[in-house]
């Protein structure tokens, strides 16, 4: 009974169970990370030197591979020099959760290593602005064009074949071109996000517009709505909840283009922070920055979802996520 109540085919679980599972979805990967980090016999392919012993190139705190350590240990034992000591450790690119947790905090209070560098929060703010403008410009073009494509076959036939072609072109491929046209600062970065988002946006929104029940449009026509009013008083409000959901998905899409976009021209924003920290081998801060991107993305989406529920109360609960 206990097991079977969790595995009912295509039926939603109780709120209580959903909460548990939702937390569990985060706890599970975290547990893997904890295991790998804190249980010495799980993975740990390196040795961290605590005493160099007779090995002349060993230093305290240095990470060496286990087989190298074993070799040197055997060497020292055979030549009866003082033996090196150390404990199992993970490679430098896999910091332990507590290091990353600390870095999440210290990242914000540590001044930048370079004089003209940016603090973590400044980098983040810069990235958020890039995303905002990229998504905003894409939406200004993509939303109206998508709705028009979904409404008028003429516009759809004239546009969509080209859009279908263009969406297969990888946005980063336009990096060099964007720099040549827009310079090396924010311009090309925003352009890459626009290119990466816009073409999908047109197609997705056109499709959403087409899915509106045609009977509603017919009802509007028999009530005397002109073509212009049909668009603004029937189609637009009719698709608004789905349009809003599409925009949320597309915003996530825009986020995924962020890092590549920021590498173009002069590296900036959170990407600059990540590459800088990686250069100094502060991998705990790299992870912290990546986690912050995730938190910002998911957090933003949750806020938008809650707002959507408020905005579209009339939408049937069955359609709600």
């Amino acid at each position, binding site marked *: 009974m206990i097991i079977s109540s969790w595995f009912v085919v295509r039926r939603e679980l109780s709120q209580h169970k959903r909460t548990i599972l939702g937390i569990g979805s985060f706890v599970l990967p975290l547990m893997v990370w904890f295991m790998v980090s804190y249980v010495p016999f799980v993975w740990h392919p390196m040795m961290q030197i605590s005493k160099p012993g007779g090995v002349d190139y060993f230093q305290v705190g240095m990470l060496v591979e286990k087989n190298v350590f074993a070799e040197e240990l055997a060497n020292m034992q055979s030549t009866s020099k003082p033996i090196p000591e150390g404990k199992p450790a993970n490679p430098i690119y896999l910091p332990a959760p507590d290091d990353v947790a600390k870095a999440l905090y210290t990242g914000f209070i540590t001044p930048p290593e370079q004089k003209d560098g940016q603090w973590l929060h400044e980098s983040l703010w810069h990235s958020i602005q890039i995303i905002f403008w990229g998504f905003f410009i894409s939406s200004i073009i993509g939303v109206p064009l998508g709705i028009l494509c979904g409404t008028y076959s003429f516009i759809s036939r004239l546009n969509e074949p080209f859009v279908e072609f263009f969406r297969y072109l990888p946005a980063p491929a336009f990096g060099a071109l964007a720099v040549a046209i827009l310079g090396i600062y924010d311009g090309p970065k925003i352009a890459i996000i626009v290119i990466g988002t816009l073409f999908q946006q047109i197609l997705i929104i056109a499709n959403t517009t087409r899915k509106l029940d045609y009977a509603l449009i*017919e009802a509007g026509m*028999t*009530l005397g709505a002109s073509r212009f009013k049909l668009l603004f008083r029937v189609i637009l409000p009719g698709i608004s909840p789905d349009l809003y959901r599409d925009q949320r998905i597309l915003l996530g899409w825009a986020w995924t283009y962020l890092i590549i976009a920021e590498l173009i021209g002069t590296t900036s924003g959170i990407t600059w922070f990540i590459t800088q920290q990686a250069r100094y081998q502060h991998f705990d801060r790299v992870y912290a920055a990546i986690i912050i991107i995730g938190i910002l993305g998911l957090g933003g989406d949750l806020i938008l979802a809650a707002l959507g529920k408020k905005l579209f109360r009339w939408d*049937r609960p069955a359609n709600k996520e």
Partner: protein
Amino acid sequence: MTIKSLPSYLEQSTEVKNRFTRMKSREVILEVKDLCKNYKTEKGDVVALKNINFKTHRREFVCVIGPSGCGKSTLIRTLAGLEPHTSGEVLLDEKPVNGPGRDRGMVFQGYTLFPWLTVKKNIMFGLEMNNISTTEAEKEAILWLELIGLEKFSNAYPHELSGGMKQRVAIARALVNQPRILLMDEPFGALDAQSRAKMQTHLLEIWRNIDITILFITHDLDEAIFLADRILVLKAHPGEVQELIEVPVPRPRHISQFNSPEFLATKARLEELIHPSEPEKEPEQEKSIKPHMIRFVNVNDNVE
């Protein structure tokens, strides 16, 4: 109680006869002349409607009935202007119909209330589309809400209403525009028997009190006889008018008339027209279905 003991459906009491005379003396609202509609499909042209002719007078209640595939829906959609016709004419107040317009209200079978608008705003929609001020439209909408008995639901959204309530709102939404004719495409088809009966009575009440002509499509014979002054019987493949029956059941109508001789006679005639005694050509596919029943239960285990 054989069919023969029933009077002819053509027999009318003086009262009913007088009603029809009065009705026919009223002006013609809708005139359909030689209406034809062909569809182009991959298999060639399909004739959906062929030479349809009829006239509807002001404040007449016409039901359209016929077997499935007779083009009932095509007919009403053509009248609404939602589909073009191939040849012939549809005249409303002697003016030809081109495309949809507010002079022909329509109630659909599926619930087509705008889900993003409250009940009141749904009713106001048509008025606002025709540039009537919001305050004026609101006044009208409140009046109609009272008329259909849903004033308590004025701020509810359509998904909070039952099927019957939704159709009440749909009727009000169409009528608030003061159309010349109300076209109804199986409006109660999706309702359960009880709310359907309620809605039929309600519709007759509205019709009695408002200057409106109604063209109502149904496949339910009882519904057609209960509601209509005249019943337009169509036949399938191609959709043609078979007969225009004048319903001899006196008004005001009441459920008790379902077993009156006039009612049964009309129903018998409709049955005859729609389900002829000799089997109609069935589609090939359905002819090939031949169930072969095997007994799975004990011989003594009888249910009948």
